[in-house]
């Protein structure tokens, strides 16, 4: 999508999403398990997954980079 020109740095920034996701998952579990149980946590993560599915469907290549594809 962004090409190799600055791909390393761009990927490095996007990689922060995994750290965020990991911390978010921990916070989610800690705040919900005692009150609602694991079932609720898993359902929320299911909802997040389907939201990601919906988001990828409208992802488009960059306009200012001709070789950009998704």
């Amino acid at each position, binding site marked *: 999508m962004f090409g190799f020109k600055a791909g390393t740095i761009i*990927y490095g920034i996007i990689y922060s999403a995994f750290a965020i996701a990991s911390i978010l998952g921990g916070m989610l*579990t800690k705040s919900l398990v005692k009150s609602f149980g694991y079932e609720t946590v898993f359902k929320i993560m299911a909802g997040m997954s389907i939201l990601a599915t919906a988001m990828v469907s409208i992802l488009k290549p960059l306009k200012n980079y001709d070789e950009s594809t998704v």
Partner: protein
Amino acid sequence: MMIVRVILALFVTLTIFQCEGYSLLPTQKIQRSSSFIRYNPNLKYENVVSQSRISPFALKMQENAVVSKEEKKGLTLNKGTLSILGGFLSHLALGTIYCWGNFISYSPLNLRFFDGTVKSGIPPDALYVLPITFLAQTIVMPFAQNVFKAIGASKSLLLGSWIAAASVYLASYQTTLLNFILTYSVLFGVGLGIGYAAPMYAGWKWLPKNKGLVSGGVLAGFGGGGFLFSLIGSKIVNPTGINPVGGQFPAEVYNRFPAMLRTLSVFYAVLGLLGSLLVSEPEAEASSATSSAAPAQTVTGVTVKEALSSWQFWWMELMVILSATAGLNTVVIYKQFAATAAVLAGDRFQALVGGIGALFNGSGRLFWGNLSDKIGFKKSFTILTILQLVLMLTYQFSRISKVHKPINSTSLSNLPLYSLLLLSTPVSYSFAWRVTLL
């Protein structure tokens, strides 16, 4: 022996998988210049790296990669193969990052919460050990290529592996969760960030036409390490397979936790040393070739500023957060979840489940990346997230399984569900990496 056979079988399978043409890495066309083979970064990549985190650095460094005449003498293959083997061995240690999901249950009670107290029924603060490791790795990764250039791949691998091993050793002496995280998470993440790409960087130089083979062989170690050391760790800390009562083990299990970490750290250090000794680079030829080869053409793509100002970048960031949370969180909490159901009881069983999940973690990176190469990012990401959706909605049913499993057995009754779920963990890495460079 069975464990060793499984690891070797996985290694061989992935190697064959790569050799059969399912390249996971950019199949770059090469431009011959006098007696050297030099990458031309401007030529279009036929495939794109499907593996996630590290490869970006290595890819950038490939622009100056050179292969010497030794290839003609048949030495390249040997040294390249040794570099793969070295990477495999060292990644057995680095891949233990995912063992925490299993080890967390053995950690002493004073390492569960930041305030050192014991709270029942509440997920522990120790859940943050893995996320902080990722965070540290994220921060260090951009600087790893500078380390490679300064001291070479072999020494970088040794440095990274030994930092990781030292982190585990030092963590064994910590009595508070904060200090434990500073060592086991932060230091380990630093070591992981430095050492992860080093063997691939070296292997790609020796075998530029077999990058898939190189990364596949190395990553087999990453998945295998999580599997192997999850079981070894459980065997050390809980040799008789005692099951927790009310979510807690007897004191004797917790008392063995520091010794387990120290023992494992020795394994990690030895594996890192062996691995780094096997990894080498054609450095002399590289330096001379760099000066004589034709100048590289411009690499296409957008700048960082252009990327950050596009909505697609932030859209992707959010997509990754939403899709990765499920797998990353489940890796850490699966044992606590299993503790809520009698049918999932059995410490050995749970350790085995986590280990198999780690195997899927390694192989899943290859599988989903290849699928993405074949059918495209959108379709494969859609399949992944829908699969993850189904697994998340049905995960709870594993604790009301009708299959009888005696306590302390290693019944496989619930393994498919667990393993498939854990399979989803690494896929977002692959996708994010691939779509970034497309």
